[in-house]
């Protein structure tokens, strides 16, 4: 039962309380870059969710069964970067073959994820927290979903913003950053949610 509550708290924290973008300030680049249209935001969000879940699991396996056993845990960063880069490439190849429609809808975003720091950040934090495999999987999925939520919210706001009469110096990225700041404050309200 305790274990189940732990899982629920991981999911809530990944999606809301510790939102990867709005609370931890990771993955800001795609958050600002791919949030102009809701449709592309959904595509990017799902692609990131997919890659974060798979890569954090693979990184966990690699760390637990190779790096930790050989006592070279300090090399985890470089090993994780290797994992993420090859994983994205692998996904690219596999999706192209198995599901051309999904590949088509993810399109350019897949390649962009290689440089998304949220992926590496999740892998690192999973190892640092000492979670087990299932918890790692749930963390990956929920953090990815949290990223998707933030991205879609932002895209919705920016779509509306495009029609507003914004002061000249604020048009574009400045107002997007201000918006992100206000959203982060709103998400801070979730920190009251606690399961322990």
């Amino acid at each position, binding site marked *: 039962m305790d274990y189940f509550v732990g899982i629920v708290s991981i999911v809530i924290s990944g999606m809301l309380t510790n939102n990867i973008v709005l609370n931890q300030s990771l993955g800001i680049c795609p958050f600002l870059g791919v949030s102009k249209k809701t449709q592309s935001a959904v595509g990017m969000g799902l692609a990131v969710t997919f890659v974060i879940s798979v890569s954090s699991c693979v990184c966990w396996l*690699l760390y637990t069964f*190779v790096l930790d056993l*050989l006592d*070279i845990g300090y*090399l985890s960063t*470089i*090993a994780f970067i*290797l*994992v993420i880069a*090859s994983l994205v*490439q*692998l996904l690219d*190849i*596999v999706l*192209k*073959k*198995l599901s*051309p429609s999904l590949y088509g809808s993810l*399109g*350019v975003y897949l390649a962009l994820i290689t440089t998304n720091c949220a992926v590496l950040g999740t892998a690192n934090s999973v190892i640092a927290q000492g979670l087990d495999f299932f918890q790692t999987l749930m963390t990956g999925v929920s953090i990815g979903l949290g990223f998707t939520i933030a991205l879609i919210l932002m895209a919705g706001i920016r779509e509306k913003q495009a029609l507003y*009469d914004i002061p000249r110096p604020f048009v574009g990225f400045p107002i997007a950053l201000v918006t992100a700041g206000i959203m982060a404050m709103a998400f801070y309200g979730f920190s009251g949610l606690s399961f322990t």
Partner: protein
Amino acid sequence: MEIFLNVIVPVLIIAVIAAIFAFCLSYLGDKLAVDRDARIDDIERNLAGANCGGCGYAGCSQFAEALFKGEAQLSRCNPTSPENKKNIAKILGMSVGESVATVAVVHCAGGNRAEDKYSYQGFGDCQSAELLAGGSKACDYGCMGLCTCVRACPNNCIAICKDTGASKVDRDECISCGACVAACPKKIIGRIPVTAKVYIACSNTTKGKEVAKVCKVGCIACGKCERVCPKGAIALSNNLAAIDYTKCIGCMKCASECPRHCIQPIGDGVRLLEKIMAAKEKAKEKAKEAANAATEKQKQDDENQ
């Protein structure tokens, strides 16, 4: 020995991991390779690679695929050079067709010479002005000069002309991507061949009397251009002159005769028209002199008698 263990071994382990990944990737890459027709890559190589999106597809790669499937037309792409287009046509086994390079042009020179319907004080955008009683100009087909096309241009080559207050395309910089054509709520930006020497600087299709009321330089459909054109390239349709560029030889007669100056020279045509106008002026002066001389002679003759 200790250094060896502490440095070389971890490096080796990482190298081995990397090698395993590389091996897996290359193996799977070969095994799961998608059979894509090599011709698609050939087509893509021949495209300009500008990824401007002017064709309506996300990028050159998607356009190449659509071309291969026969869903798209090669003429939709403007940045690609004619030679490369020929290559692509060869790959696809079809003729190039009439895919001439084009530039965007604003079919309105009214601007501040057209009457205002009301004094617009809003967001400063053509789209929003268009929502308010169909635009701020009394002419429903006139450029409002609120810069929606200027902001849409990826190449920064369209600007509001200081003389007229209507927007104008810098034809040397224009890549003819069509962004402004799509952005203009009045739909008065079009594309004409690069070789064109004249264009119609008006889009108003209402009757001449109505046009004369709202704009000083609008086409009143007088038909003079239609009559002076030696090749029959201009025809009036919907109270507006239209040029058939396949017939136009660039004689500039229409531009020099248009009483409303709404057939405007463009490109090489600008200098050509200047020359013609200068020659006309000279001829006028000569005629005047001749007339003066004639009257003087008449006078002398009268005196002699």
